[in-house]
């Protein structure tokens, strides 16, 4: 879908390394606005590394990453801050601040980056928590939440400044299938109603089939992308037997 629009994220000839070990060797892809874009692959293939480059935490060895037309690799520190307002990130373990309630967690970016009056922040934070279905739990502390609720809360915090892109690292790791399905629903709802573009790392095949508009599959052996496309398409037509086997694992 939307493939003739200008991409909202564009990764071009990216090379990443830790020390002398190359993790990703010359990969390029585009993400289009409103798309749910999945990054999959075995552990250690560089999925989280890729995400960390796309959100500006790591600097690549070479290559360019454009977010909404701005290059985040070359950008100065303060310009980068402005570009990064357009994205929100949910980290692998949620990374909610343990000393603050849910409400305070969601309000924190609003307090730091906007000049909204206090009652406005309360209302907007509550709207975000309602979107993820946690409005009733807003006074709880993160340690009092279940794993699924923590992920929802982390999504609400990532949404605080209404980003155009949400990065979700390990959306369904450590969750039961039902909770995981609930999170998939949430992703579909958010992309539907708010037009948010999602970039998601996941391992769960059912979840991949449910939400993906497009998938890229990374692999250690080539240090790059071994497959790109819609999961159904890859299952039927990929010329890589490993990819076909992966997508057929639970589908049939």
């Amino acid at each position, binding site marked *: 879908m939307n493939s003739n629009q200008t991409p909202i994220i564009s990764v071009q000839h990216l090379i990443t390394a830790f020390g002398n070990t190359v993790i990703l060797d010359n990969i390029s892809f585009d993400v289009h606005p409103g798309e749910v874009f999945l990054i999959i692959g075995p552990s250690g293939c560089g999925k989280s590394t890729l995400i960390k480059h796309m959100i500006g935490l790591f600097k690549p060895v070479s290559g360019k990453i454009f977010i909404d037309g*701005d290059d985040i690799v070359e950008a100065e520190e303060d310009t980068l801050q402005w570009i990064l*307002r357009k994205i929100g990130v949910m980290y692998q373990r949620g990374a909610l601040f343990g*000393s603050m309630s849910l409400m305070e967690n969601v309000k924190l970016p609003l307090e730091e980056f*906007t000049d909204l009056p206090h009652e*406005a922040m309360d209302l907007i934070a509550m*709207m975000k928590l*309602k979107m993820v279905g946690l409005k009733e739990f807003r*006074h709880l502390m993160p340690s009092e939440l279940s794993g699924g609720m923590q992920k929802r809360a982390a999504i609400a915090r990532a949404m605080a*400044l209404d980003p155009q892109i949400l990065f979700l690292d390990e959306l369904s790791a450590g969750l039961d299938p039902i909770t995981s399905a609930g999170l998939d629903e949430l992703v579909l709802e958010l992309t539907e109603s708010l037009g948010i573009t999602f970039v998601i790392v996941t391992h769960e095949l059912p979840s991949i089939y449910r939400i993906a508009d497009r998938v890229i599959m990374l692999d250690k052996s080539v240090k790059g992308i071994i497959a790109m496309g819609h999961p159904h398409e890859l299952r039927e037509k990929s010329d890589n037997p490993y990819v076909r086997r992966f997508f057929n694992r639970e589908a049939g």
Partner: protein
Amino acid sequence: MMEETHLKTTNQPTSPVLLEVTGQEVLTLKLVGRLDATTTGKAWQKALGLLEQEKPQDIVIDAEGMTYCDLSGIGLLLELKRRQMRVGSEIEIRGLRPEFHELLTLFDPMEFDEPESKTDEPFNVPKEVGQATTKVWEDIQALIEFVGEACVALFRVLLNPRQVRWRDTFFVAESAGVNALPIIALISFLIGLIMAFQAAIPMRQFGAEIFVADLIGLSMVRELGPLMTAIVLTGRSGSAFAAELGTMKVNEEIDALTTMGLDPMNFLVVPRMVASLFMTPLLTVFSNLMGVIGGALVLLTLGYPLITYFNEVYAAVTIGDFLGGLVKSFVFGVLVAGVGCLRGLQTKIGPTAVGESTTSAVVGGIVVIVVTDGIFSVIYYYLGI
């Protein structure tokens, strides 16, 4: 070039709200341009400020010129709607694009109106005092329990030394003992120096400077050597033990040990206590020596030869004083490691918990050391040491 201009518009948001008052009863708010997280703040203040000021009967919102609106903007519309509904007035939203209207219908303005469920309990003095007292009592209980368990573990180790994890013990002995040598040497040297200097000035009036040697020798060996070593170790190692064990507790590593059938007492506490037990007296000897050297420097500058100073120290300090100090430092060593480990194991959940247990390890450690030192003074007095 395109990127530049793009950034500028985000950097300096233009005010997205224009206001128009038409007639006495109806206020028309014109929303123009982008209404996002950065720009909504100004619009919010402007819109609600005007609402307060004009107190209109009805509001018309003209959203014809609004190009973009996210949840923050929708929040503003909701707030306006909510205000009007509360006072029973009308609000009309014109020209809102269908996709934004759809967002607006996701929320019911009155659903955020519920009273805050957060009820702060009023401050209750008897209750607070009671809770604090129970807490002190529980603390004492935990301490006694811990001392008992630690003693049992140490005796078991004494009977069967092969049970001790010697690798860990040597590692702790290095990091908590050997690496503490420079700081302890420095502090003791300075204490000896300062004390000697301060004492020498008044004693000079009586021509009694040489007795500074007695003062330094006795006070370092009997009191200050063991005490300073213990206090530095509390700050340096007691806190480290608490933080280490506390982080393990938070990461459920302690639970993992227990379910594997490994006693955390044996596995974590005993190596630290044994290391501390042996290293503290050694460091104390060093501390004594450095203090005496500090005093020597002062007397040297006052014109006394070194040999006179050391003879005086030698005459004043008996082997009983020295051993008395060492016995104390054995006990201090166990206490420092014990309190540190206890606080570490008591750590609760969350990132602030580790900080709390580190703090209480240092505070508790110093209190316990000073109290024990007082007890020792009384015992030594009656024993005539």
